[in-house]
């Protein structure tokens, strides 16, 4: 089809048919403000309700102002984006939004990263000319997410993520007119809803309406307590994103600086969740091979595929929506929980500290981890294996509070033994990474041969659902990968329907995997941020001297000294778990495209 020619602010623009005025303007360096609009291009995620009207522009020949996000370019259009009429309209819209918005910006959790605040500043709002009723809602606190709907501007980004992308269906717009709000069914609390705590609603909320539970004060208190030994683990995706909180380019790897900062904060030992990721591969990989061998030997009771179980939002999802399939996922605990279990037994014994005096903190790109560490099955006599799970954003806040000049920090190394890891563990942070790590180990264990190439490009990418066949010395192993719970649902439905021929499937709840997690620095609608983090993760993998989990010397030592072998009785007790039927409403939502 022919390209469309139009003029925006006196500049000629040529675009593909179907392009919105907003995108066309961006092509010629004109950034029209938006609030409800969200487009993560590489991930095919779009929210375009045309509801907030902040992006209105003047189109000649049209009587009304047009929302540029939802107006398609037409041949010969003459568009003006900054006339007095447009600016006045935008200010009026913003003032009306702010007339029903709390004025506690100075102490709001989103201050400084709030899209509403930034847009109001950009529009030069210095006075609100409208006074009216203000909405008041009860604050809703779940283990992971806080909903403060007084701050909701009804952009519906959260609703789109929760329903269209995740197919979780916990949030929906209810009521009409002034009493409209986004809420779970029957306005109940999130804990009673189908919420998986994936945190993607928080990741896209343009205001302080949806935020994470803040655990920074508990950490400060624990660090100040001389009776406690406080150790920390950092998830792989954190090091590829933390720098953004300090103004660094997306994709900057800050592993060394992060370790320095944690040591300066006063943690007694700075360890790595990557160590536990290697351990996960030992357990999950062995489980995969055991199930695969049983299956190939014709054991009718063995079912495949095996599904990964590292992602806590994904675990919550299948417990809610597919409880009848709860025997399919691997029983391996997530790396966070494996770390906690080993830290409070093996490591606590090593340093002669009682588990009650050992505080395990984790830095996670994830909000569901906060819920996961509170699960009853991960406690011993009421004492949790992991005491507090903080997001990447919370770590940045801790660093800032403690007067640490992050950018000038020297690189430091993780402590031993639980800080040592391989490249296979690092890639747990991205979609495709867990299964690639599993393949690296499972191949060598199964075939007894050394891998000629360690990187499996065929498992990488950003497509929502991917598949590849890996040759295990003549035995083709079919692998499926999904990120985003809507994509996961599609794969689960195909397993249920019996149309799936995968041996193993990796699932991560968030777009791009953990690098796009709900606890990461906000991407503000730029999917390039997430792809840059993915590049950084693979870069770290390449730089590692050891890139296969089973070659990690400290993992070998852990098995020799303590666990025995993968799937041993001790391993089962400490590193594996079981799942529950948590379905509240027996509803299956088909994926909308």
């Amino acid at each position: 089809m022919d390209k469309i020619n139009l003029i925006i602010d006196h500049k000629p623009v040529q675009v593909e048919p179907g392009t919105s005025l907003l995108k066309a303007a961006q092509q010629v360096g004109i950034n029209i403000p938006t609030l409800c609009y969200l487009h993560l291009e590489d991930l095919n995620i779009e929210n375009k309700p045309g509801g907030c009207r902040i992006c209105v522009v003047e189109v000649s020949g049209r009587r009304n102002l047009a929302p540029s996000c939802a107006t398609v370019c037409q041949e010969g259009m003459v568009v003006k984006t900054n006339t007095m009429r447009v600016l006045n309209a935008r200010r009026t819209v913003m003032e009306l939004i702010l007339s029903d918005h709390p004025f506690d910006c100075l102490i709001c959790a989103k201050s400084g990263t709030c899209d509403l605040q930034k847009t109001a500043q950009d529009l030069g709002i210095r006075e609100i000319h409208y006074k009216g009723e203000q909405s008041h809602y009860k604050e809703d606190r779940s283990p992971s997410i806080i909903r403060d709907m007084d701050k909701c501007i009804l952009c519906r980004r959260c609703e789109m993520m929760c329903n269209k992308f995740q197919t979780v269906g916990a949030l929906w717009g209810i009521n009409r007119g002034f009493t409209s709000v986004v809420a779970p069914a029957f306005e109940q609390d999130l804990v009673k809803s189908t919420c998986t705590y994936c945190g993607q609603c928080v990741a896209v909320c343009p205001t302080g309406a949806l935020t994470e539970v803040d655990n920074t004060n508990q950490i400060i208190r624990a660090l100040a307590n001389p009776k406690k030994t406080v150790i920390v683990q950092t998830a792989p995706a954190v090091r590829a994103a933390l720098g953004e909180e300090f103004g660094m380019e997306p994709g900057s790897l800050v592993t060394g600086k992060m370790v320095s900062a944690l040591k300066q904060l006063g943690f007694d030992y700075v360890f790595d969740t990557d160590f536990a990721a290697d351990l996960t591969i030992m357990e999950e990989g062995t489980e995969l091979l055991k199930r695969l061998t049983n299956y190939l030997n014709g054991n009718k009771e063995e079912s495949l595929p095996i599904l990964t179980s590292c992602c806590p939002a994904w675990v919550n999802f299948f417990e809610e929506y597919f409880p009848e399939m709860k025997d399919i996922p691997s029983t391996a605990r997530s790396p966070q929980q494996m770390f906690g279990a080993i830290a409070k037994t093996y490591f606590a014994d090593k340093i002669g500290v009682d588990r009650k005096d050992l505080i395990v903190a984790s830095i996670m790109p994830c909000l569901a981890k906060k819920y996961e560490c509170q699960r009853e099955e991960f406690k011993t006599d009421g004492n949790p294996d992991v005491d507090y799970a903080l997001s990447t954003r919370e770590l940045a806040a801790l660093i800032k509070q403690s007067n640490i000049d992050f950018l000038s920090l020297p690189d430091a190394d993780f402590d031993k033994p639980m800080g040592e890891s391989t490249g296979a563990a690092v890639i747990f942070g991205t979609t495709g990474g867990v299964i690639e790590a599993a393949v690296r180990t499972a191949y060598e264990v199964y075939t007894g041969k050394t891998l000629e190439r360690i990187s499996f490009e065929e498992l990488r990418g950003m497509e929502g659902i991917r598949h590849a066949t890996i040759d295990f010395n003549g035995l083709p192993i079919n692998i499926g990968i999904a990120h985003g719970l809507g994509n996961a649902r599609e794969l689960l439905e195909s397993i249920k329907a019996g149309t799936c021929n995968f041996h193993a499937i990796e699932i991560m709840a968030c777009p791009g995997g953990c690098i796009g997690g709900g606890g990461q620095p906000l991407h503000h609608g730029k999917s390039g941020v997430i792809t840059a983090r993915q590049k950084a993760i693979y870069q770290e993998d390449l730089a590692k001297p050891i890139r296969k989990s089973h070659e990690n010397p400290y993992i070998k030592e852990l098995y020799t000294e303590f666990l025995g072998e993968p799937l041993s009785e001790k391993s089962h007790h400490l590193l594996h778990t079981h799942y529950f039927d948590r379905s509240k409403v027996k509803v299956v939502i088909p994926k909308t495209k």
Partner: protein
Amino acid sequence: MSSIKVELHENQVNELVEVCKSFSNDPFELIHVLHKAQSIFGYLPAEVQEIVARELKIPVAKVYGVVTFYSFFSMIPKGQNPISICMGTACYVRGAEKVLEEFKRKLAVEVGETTKDGRFSLNCLRCVGACGLAPVVMVGDKTYGRVSPDGVQEILAEYM
């Protein structure tokens, strides 16, 4: 799960499931299904919304969103004789408000409530399309035109 626990009759639930089937369990027919559901149960308690969600394979939060959007749908049980006062423009200018006040006084309920004996419930609606008869009152499916406050007692008497 809903906090309010309501005992639903099995035959009513079966009827609702049949209604959903008659609409091919199509999620786009949600409003029609809810309309029928309300006529079966008299109102739409959380349990009914959960059944609709399950049958149409949509989130219950979405069903609740639609139920709370349209004033026609109610989560409060209707009386045996649901009274609706039209508050459309024509009825309003011809004195619907006074008629409403009289109903409120006689029944001792507010709009959206049901009398203690469960006999009457009182609601307002916007235009039933009979503006020539303004002000209009509906009791169940029966329509009363040119109602004056004086005529309220006479209407109620029919159902006592």
